[in-house]
């Protein structure tokens, strides 16, 4: 997504704040340095931009409230989704900027490259990326996940296809990136293990212009549902268009990226977006009565009052950024320290931390913070203020 002037100014002012205070060591309880790294420009930057938006909003809230307590600084670094830059940025935050925590990154490739570095430096990490391997309480005791991960998404999606849509033959199509590869492999294995027929599986290049061959093969294989594991906008829309072109009314179930607003303009006709369901955080969904959970509704109002852009967004991404900052400041407040050991101990003892994107719960053995029950399926084309309507048959 475009580097908007707002986000640029925000990051620039954060940078100015950082550079003006230099790299002096901060007295532990007078200031909290929160580092954020992720793709803000470059491919697949929408998640990073929205996550940062939420984090910045939380920091502004704290400053605005003028409460007594440590000052909070947010230091962003744009990695452009490049693992090389991610490694540089991680090391910079550890050694030069000496942040107290790192939020992010925004992509799997970046995460995979920096988990080791952060663990060795005992740098606390609140991580929203989805690869299963990056969270391991034994290997990376410093890292905590603040969103769902692939195994959970896979479970939710399969549940919906098999139990709600009652499909017995499923096609699994993903892109050939990190997420797509892992997700497709995982889903296919799980489906086969539970005795469901895999009608067709494929890893598709996101720039492939015509998806009809793949969908036709899926149809020939007898699929009654198609699981779509890609966040690539072009690929998702082409699949929906191809589905309409071959007159196949099969449900698409999959990645939250299938709900991005831009899709509407890429579609041949809006109705192509029907019968598409995405896995998302339940906390940011409208129930049957069209209402959001109260905490979320409050958050939406707060954002609107401050003119933070939320139309055409995915609210739980913004919420996730907000929650990450809250998790950090709460930890510092409760333990009176910014030291890594204290923070980690606090998080591991959390019973149910009330966040916007979900209620987080960690334990010494489990560093994945979002319980699977907090995921839900929603209608992809129902986005309003970043929230979606729950899918039919799903509560």
């Amino acid at each position: 997504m475009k580097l908007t002037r707002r986000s640029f100014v925000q990051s620039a002012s954060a940078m100015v704040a950082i550079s003006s205070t230099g790299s002096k060591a901060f007295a532990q309880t007078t200031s909290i340095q929160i580092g954020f790294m992720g793709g803000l420009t470059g491919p697949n930057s929408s998640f990073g931009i929205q996550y940062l938006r939420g984090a910045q909003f939380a920091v502004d809230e704290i400053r605005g409230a003028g409460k007594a307590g440590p000052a909070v600084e947010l230091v962003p670094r744009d990695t452009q989704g490049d693992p090389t830059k991610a490694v540089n940025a991680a090391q910079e935050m550890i050694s030069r900027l000496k942040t107290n925590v790192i939020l992010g990154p925004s992509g799997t490739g970046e995460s995979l490259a920096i988990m080791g570095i952060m663990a060795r430096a005992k740098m606390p990490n609140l991580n929203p990326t989805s690869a299963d391997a990056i969270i391991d309480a034994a290997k990376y005791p410093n890292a905590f996940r603040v969103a769902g991960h692939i195994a959970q998404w896979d479970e939710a999606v399969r549940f919906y296809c098999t139990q709600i849509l009652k499909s017995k033959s499923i096609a699994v199509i993903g892109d050939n990136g990190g997420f797509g590869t892992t997700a497709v492999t995982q889903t296919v294995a799980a489906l086969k293990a539970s005795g469901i027929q895999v009608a067709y599986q494929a890893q598709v290049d996101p720039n492939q212009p015509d998806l009809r061959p793949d969908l036709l093969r899926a149809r020939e294989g007898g699929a009654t549902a198609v699981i779509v594991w890609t966040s690539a906008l072009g690929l998702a829309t082409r699949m929906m268009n191809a589905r309409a072109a071959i007159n196949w009314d099969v449900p698409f179930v999959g990645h939250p990226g299938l709900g991005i607003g831009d899709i509407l303009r890429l579609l041949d006709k809006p109705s192509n977006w029907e019968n598409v369901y995405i896995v998302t955080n339940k906390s940011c969904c409208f129930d049957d009565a069209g209402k959001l959970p109260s905490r979320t509704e409050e958050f939406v109002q707060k954002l609107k009052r401050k003119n933070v852009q939320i139309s055409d967004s995915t609210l739980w991404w913004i919420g996730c950024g907000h929650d990450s900052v809250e998790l950090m400041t709460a930890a510092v407040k409760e333990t009176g320290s910014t030291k890594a050991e204290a923070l980690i101990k606090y998080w591991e003892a959390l019973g149910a931390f009330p966040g916007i994107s979900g209620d987080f719960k960690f334990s010494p053995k489990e560093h994945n913070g979002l319980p699977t029950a907090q995921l839900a399926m929603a209608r992809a084309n129902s986005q309003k203020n970043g929230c979606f309507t729950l899918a039919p048959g799903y509560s």
Partner: protein
Amino acid sequence: MSGMAKLSAPPGFLQRAQFTFSAWPYVLLLIAAISLPFTGANDYWILLATRMAIYTILIMGLNLVVGFAGQLALGYVGLLTIGAYTSSVLVEKLGVGVFPALVIAAVAGGAFGALLSIPALRLRTFYFAMTTMGFATIVSQIVLAWQSITGGGNGIVGPVFPAPFDAANGFYLFCLVLAAICTWTTLNLSNSRHGRSLLAVRDVEVAAAANGVNKNVLFLKTFFFSGFLSGLAGALFATLQSYITPDAFTLDLSVLFFIAILIGGRGSIIGPLLATVLLTLLPEISAPLVTWAPFLYAILLLVIVLLIPGGIAALLDVERRKPLKTGRLIIPQPVYLPSVLDNPAGAESIAMKQVELRFGQIRALDGLDIDIKPGQVHGLIGPNGSGKTTTLNVICGFGTPQQGSLWIGDRQIPFGSPSTRVSLGIARTFQTPKVVGEATVLANVMLGGTTLGTATFMESLFGMPRHRKDEKSLREHALMALRVVGLEELAAVQAERLQHSELRFMEIARALVSRPRFLLLDEPAAGLSPAEIERLGDLVKEIGRHGTGVLIVEHHSDLVFRMSDQVTVLNLGRMLAAGSPAEIKVHPEVVSAYLGV
């Protein structure tokens, strides 16, 4: 004679005229780099420095291909990918030790690098550039698709070195040492006949061939070595990243490496070295730069190409901007000829028999017989289009006649294959001087000794004794040849700064270096002043007297008559007349067809 005075001056003179190699920038850089961990720099700077060292390894190799050989290899990230994945897969999936995996990864890079030499030899510049881009894309696609081995889009963990190389400082020093060694080897190569040959192939391929450079073999070795370094860099990169995924190996990275060499300066070593440091640091210094970094690199490239083609190296090279003496005279000193042409005179002649060369309907040569006898100056004259230069070209292996044969003594030599001629004792100059502009006069002349050297590519890389012996004796030999043609004062000057006439004499010096039995001169007097023409004539006559057979193609018939022992007149690809100058001068047909009244 002025030459006498010069004779007594050799030692200091030699030092001055030596191909001056300034070591201090490298030493300074190395000292700064080594001391970094000891200044208490934090891990962030060590990381950046390690990255610089790793990129340096690749860029030193790429420099040979792009900067020296002039091949626009835009897709080298493919070799980086191959090195990275080879070492990672070997260690992670096959349990191979880290150090053996490092070497194997480098060899894999070398093998694929060598493969790239094939399109480099067959295809034109732009086509080759595209092919390398295609290669890089193929590599990344295969890595993505071959999930079982490479982990596909999910990547694979990079190799971990044993202590002390697993710590930031330890690994940094390891990479630094490797980078220093790689820089040193490329430096050695640039000061060897292989390096000079690469430059010659890049700028004046025809002259390279005429001086015995075998382009195919040279490219194969160069590309292998370059790929080897890239593979090595890739393996180290995998360790630095600790986990590699395909999205780290972008075409942008490839272009970055490429631009580093152009910005640094082709044909230079220190330039690309400094450029690497600069380009690695640039995005780290300021955050807004990250977004616009590719744009800045492109502008830098454009500015360099348009305004400072020599790059950073040209900016640094103060030596070469010092003004030259004006009003220089070329005063050959044939008295030194014996020290240059110190091989015993042969008794064989070159004979061309009944050669016919047609281009479509045009008969460039129409049944021509000609002999070049040792110790004789043989002039070849005739109107434009009579086939003079074509004759010379055919003898030198350029152009393949449809009929006829070519002999040295009683051995028949094949048409074509120009790079074999020098070993047969045939050397030549060109109608328009073909020199490597950015190299010194001395280096240009040393090109003539390409076939005299015996040090192999490997020996040159590592500065082995045989290489150093070769270089020393070749340098002295070339200097002597420059003395012969009267250009020794300009030995350390960049060739492109020379006047046209000086370039002509320089070409003769280059030809003399190969100790030729036969010297073929293609219109050597064109553009020379009358005084210079006279001195040229004296020089050529002396060369003939020393036993070398000389064929001189010329338009200046007076010059030809004065210095030749034998003259052949061509017309329309055929011999019109042949004989002594006196005979030809008054030959009726010659006078009417060519000389005029």
